[in-house]
Every structure is written in structure tokens, then in C-alpha cells.
């Protein structure tokens, strides 16, 4: 195990962790407001589609990223309405929305393709080496020679921390997720806070989809999200609803994922599935309650009604 192995493995971990981390940071804000948004899985897929179609039409990567975020916000406006105004079961509405998103993405993609079957590829974000920082040993190539969406994601993590713990609105949002009745009595609009949370998670999930298309693969496939939204839910739990710990949690998931590839290449002795299942097992332990309260927002999944 030489340095080159570690650098390659860790850089791959960061690369694979990027999109799910973006989705997880948004989901974290949403869950802090008391809404479990299971619909991010479908939102990621629609964001990926929006960015792919925009990139194909305009060729602009920035515009594609913006389009994905806008699409994420737009569809989550509907989800927020279901969760907050209709007060439907959050789990049911989110899960069914995911099925709808799969159907809609496939239908729109085919409509846009117009019967063409060839796999179209688009240009992707090139890695950007940050001056000075990228020349640090190990840390440099692992963190500071990545693509623009990763830097944006790390900024978003910092932003989530500052927003949740250093601003009035962040405090109000957390209050809506811990004790909506008390928050309401204190003059906070629980509805508005929860809409805000869901829309933030929609924007970040849309960005996660664009991240996959524009910085990882360069094309769109109907099955490309494949449970990454659920992984983001796991990262939020594993990271105990803290923006910084979520970064670490995402890296653990990414590292197991990346190690799988190296193991498959090097030897056939360790089944990679064991490694892949490991982060989920740790997440289950984290939420099981065996090791005390996991820091779950007290009113998570509970619709709030004044009357």
C-alpha cells in the first residue's frame, strides 16, 4: 500500500461522494425543518435530465447547472405543497413522487430525443486545480484538484452550517422542526419555514443531478440515480443532522464505494458487496437508538396543523 494507492483511492472517494453530499446537505436543512423529503431521489433524476437537455441545447455548463437547480425547486414546490399545505404523509407522498419522477423523466427524455437511439454525450466540467492548495501532499490531489461542482458542494456545506446555526431564520427553521407548536406561539410561520426547507432540499437535489451528468458521466440514463437519493438520507442520519459531520459521512460512503472498484481490480478474495453494505449497517446502528438519541429533529415526519 504505497502513497499512490491512497491518493487514488481517496480522490476517487471524494469524487464519488460529491453528488450525494450535495443532496444530503439540502436534505439536512429540510429535515431540520421537520420534513423528511424522500422525494429527493426523484428530484435528482429530474435535475440530471434538466441539466442534460440544457447542455445539449445551449452547450453552456453553467446554464445547465442553473436549469437543474431551477427544475429541482419547481418540482419541490409541488412536494412542499403536498407535505405542508395538504399535510399528506411525508413518506407516502415522497415515495410516490419518486415513481412519478422515473416515469416523467423517461417520457420527457424520449420525447426530446424524438426516436433517436444513439447515446449522446455532452462536455463535462474539467478538474480545476486550486493554486498552492493543490500542491500540498496527499490533501492537494484529493481535495483541491476536483471539479467546480465539488467546490460548490463544500461551500454549500459551510453555508448550511452558517445558515442553521448563525442566522435568525436558521434558528426559526430549526424550531419548526423541533417543536412547531412552540415555534408557532413565538410568532414563527411553521408553514413558511417548512416550505423553505423543502425548496432548499429541492435545489440541492437538482444540483446533485446536474453534478452527476456534468461532472461524472457526461450523458443521461433513465436508471442513473439508482438509489443515490436514499444514500443521501443515510448520510444525513449517519452525520447526525450536522452539516460538517455529513461531509465525513459522505466520505465514508464514497470510500467504501471506491474501495470496491480497487478490490475488484486487484483480487477476488473479498466480496465487494460486504463493503458496500457496511455504511448502511453503520447507518442503521446510528438510527437504531441503541446508542442513545441520534439527534433526530423531534417533529420529523409530523405534519403540523394549527387547529
Amino acid at each position, binding site marked *: 500500500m504505497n502513497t499512490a494507492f491512497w491518493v487514488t483511492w481517496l480522490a476517487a472517494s471524494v469524487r464519488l461522494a460529491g453528488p450525494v453530499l450535495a443532496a444530503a446537505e439540502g436534505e439536512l436543512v429540510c429535515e431540520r425543518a421537520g420534513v423528511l423529503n424522500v422525494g429527493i431521489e426523484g428530484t435528482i433524476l429530474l435535475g440530471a435530465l434538466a441539466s442534460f437537455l440544457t447542455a445539449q441545447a445551449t452547450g453552456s455548463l453553467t446554464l445547465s447547472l442553473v436549469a437543474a437547480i431551477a427544475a429541482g425547486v419547481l418540482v419541490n414546490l409541488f412536494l412542499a405543497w403536498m407535505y*405542508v399545505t395538504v399535510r399528506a404523509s411525508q413518506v*407516502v407522498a415522497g415515495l410516490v413522487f419518486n415513481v412519478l419522477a422515473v416515469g*416523467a423523466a423517461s417520457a420527457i427524455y424520449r*420525447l426530446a430525443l424524438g426516436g433517436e437511439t444513439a447515446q449522446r454525450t455532452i462536455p463535462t466540467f474539467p478538474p480545476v486545480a486550486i493554486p498552492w492548495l493543490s500542491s500540498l501532499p496527499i490533501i492537494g490531489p484529493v481535495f483541491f484538484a476536483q471539479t467546480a461542482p465539488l467546490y460548490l458542494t463544500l461551500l454549500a456545506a459551510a453555508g448550511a452550517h452558517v445558515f442553521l446555526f448563525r442566522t435568525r431564520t436558521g434558528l426559526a427553521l430549526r424550531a419548526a422542526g423541533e417543536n412547531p407548536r412552540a415555534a408557532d406561539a413565538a410568532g414563527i410561520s411553521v408553514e*413558511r419555514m417548512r416550505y423553505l426547507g423543502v425548496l432548499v432540499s429541492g435545489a440541492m437535489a437538482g444540483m446533485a443531478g446536474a453534478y452527476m451528468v456534468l461532472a461524472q458521466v457526461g450523458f443521461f440514463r433513465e436508471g442513473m440515480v439508482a438509489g443515490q437519493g436514499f444514500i443521501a438520507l443515510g448520510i444525513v442520519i449517519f452525520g447526525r443532522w450536522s452539516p460538517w459531520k455529513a461531509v465525513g459521512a459522505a466520505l465514508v460512503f464514497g470510500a467504501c464505494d471506491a474501495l470496491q472498484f480497487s478490490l475488484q481490480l486487484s483480487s477476488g478474495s473479498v466480496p465487494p458487496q460486504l463493503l458496500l453494505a457496511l455504511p448502511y449497517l453503520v447507518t*442503521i446502528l446510528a438510527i*437504531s437508538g441503541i446508542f442513545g438519541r441520534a439527534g433526530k429533529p423531534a417533529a420529523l415526519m409530523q405534519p403540523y396543523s394549527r387547529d
Partner: protein
Amino acid sequence: MGELLQRLKPRWLEKRLEPADSPAAVAASVVLAVAAALAVTVVLFLAYGANPLAAFYELFHEPFGTLRGFGYTLAGAAPLSLIALGAIVCWRAGFEYLGFEGCFVLGAAASAWLALAAAPGGWLAGLPFPFFLALAIFASAAAGGIWAAATALLRVRSGGNEVLISLMANYVAIFFVQYLVSWPMRAPGSLPETAQMPRATWLPFLWHGGRAHAGILLAVAATLAVWALLKKTRLGFEMLVMGANLRAARYAGIPAGRRMVAAALIGGGLGGVAGMTELLGAQHRLMDGISGGVGFLGLIVALLARLNPLAVLPTAILYAGMSVGADAIERRTTVPTSITLILESLIVLFVLAAELLRRYRVRLPFSREATEAKEAKR
């Protein structure tokens, strides 16, 4: 947002103190929801340049008008309805379990293990089919049931959240089966899958040359069993009380923890049997991705059936039929199969949203109540 709506709300719309819950109001809201979903589908058909009437005919003709298509419909409905029934048992007991993908693949794996042992030379070789079937049902139900009960125990014993645990546990089960088919149970060949199950272990087909298998009969039996459990037994009654109000159930002396584990055993067990019917009735080979998301689609069937066990079979048959019809449409026109996913999920979402309509009442300016209210003001 809500406040904005309040301000925009026309004067003739009035909020009710309680949502209208008369059968007529519920039926009206459901009909409206289905009509809205159908309207969206019509627009999609038009977008693909298909004649909506012809497309709808196609959607229902293949699955219900041809014997071949009906066979596929029944084969698809069997695992869907078993999972929906399992979900009903869990959810109506207040256990919001979402881990049916896991139960499904584990039940399929358990029955694959037994079926391979029944091959010539195996330790179950020569077992008459009825005994084998009983064993396979038991093993797949045990696999799914114990898997779901583990989540229930985490909730009951240490207060873990079953929604999040079961979503994560799905992946553990799926990776475990992926491991089984890539290493210990893998057949020689390039694909990670088991050998084909011995013919003697297949569920019998209902008619010669058709794909419908005996799994649908198991689903009928399970429907009656779940209905009887919830309506006719003490255990079922206690589960329903827990689902309606957990705290009240505890005050009434119901051992809620044990009942919840029981609900998970039964519900997860049905999910496991669903995996068995898919493996021994349709696929005849264990492979990665055998579920194809049926663990979640079964939940949609349960919701469309409004958690009523007797409504599950017709709903599942309609649902599976539309998938078969969509395949037929895709073969003949440019309309993709995903159109059924859109139609079915929109129906559920709109039914949920129609709940909102029942919270309001229309009061026209010249109606009797409005006039009376005006009189009273004077």
C-alpha cells in the same frame, strides 16, 4: 404560502371545521383525482402523436382481452398483491414499514436455496411437490418475516425509527443477495446468477402455454387470511387499535411492542412469499435486481386500495394489467411504457391532494345558507 392562499381565497369558499368524510364526499374526491390523472395521460398520449382513445383501448385490450396478455397480468399481480397485503398488515398496526424490497429478495433467495437442494443429488431430491411447496412457503415467509421483525424490534426495544431503518435495510438485503449470486450460489457462466431452478420445483402454470402461475392463488388465499385476521381475530383487532391510537392501545392493556413485532412477522412474511412466487413462478433463476422495484410498487397498490385487503386483488390486477398494456403500446407506437408509472403515481398523489378539497365547502352567493347568514347579520 398558505397565508397567501388564504388571502386569495374567494369569498364563496369556506373552510370546514372538520374535513367532509361522508362516503359521497370521499367518492367524489377520488373520482376527481382519477379524472385529473387521466386528463394528464391524455395530454401525454397527444404529445406522442397517439390517438388517446386508441391508446386507452390498447392499454386495456392486451392485458384483459387476450389470453396471453391476461396470463402475464396474473403473473405480475401475484407478487404485487402479496406485498400490498403485507404492507396493509404492517401499516394498519401503526408500523410504517418500507422494507419490502428486502423481504422480497430474501424470500426469493430462501426459496432458491431450497429449490436448488431439490435438484437430483441434493438433500431434498425426490420430495413430492406439495411438501416442497409447503417448505418453500414456510422458508420464504420466515426469511421475510424475521427480516422485518428485526426492524420492529429495533423500534420497540430502543426507539429507532422504522421508516429510516427499513429504507437502509433494503440495501443490506439487496447487497446480501448480490453477494449470494456472485459467489456461493453462482452458476458457471458470465452472468452473476444461479442455475435455473429444477422444473419440478416450479409453481404450476394455470393453463397450458400461459404465463399465469399458482402464485395468484396464494394471493387469493392471503387476501382472505389478512381480511379474517383484521376483521375476525383478537390479534387483528388489537393491531387496528394500535394503528388508530398507540397511546390508547397501551392504556387499554394491549402489549403494543409484541403486537408490532407480530405485525412485522406477518407483513414481512407476506413480502417474502411474494419473492418466492416471483422466483418459482416467473423468473426460475435468482439474480441481482430480481425485484425490479416491486417492493415499492406494491406499496402504491396498497395505497390505491386504501389499505383495504379486499380491494387489493382487483387493484393489483388492474395495475399489473396496465403495465402489460403499456408494453404492448410501446411495441406498436412511440408511447413509452413509463406512461403507466405516471398515470398510477398521479392517481395516488391526486387522491392525497383531493383530501384538501374535502376541507372546504362551496357557499354560492345566492344559496340558502348565504342568504340566511346575510339576514342574520342584519
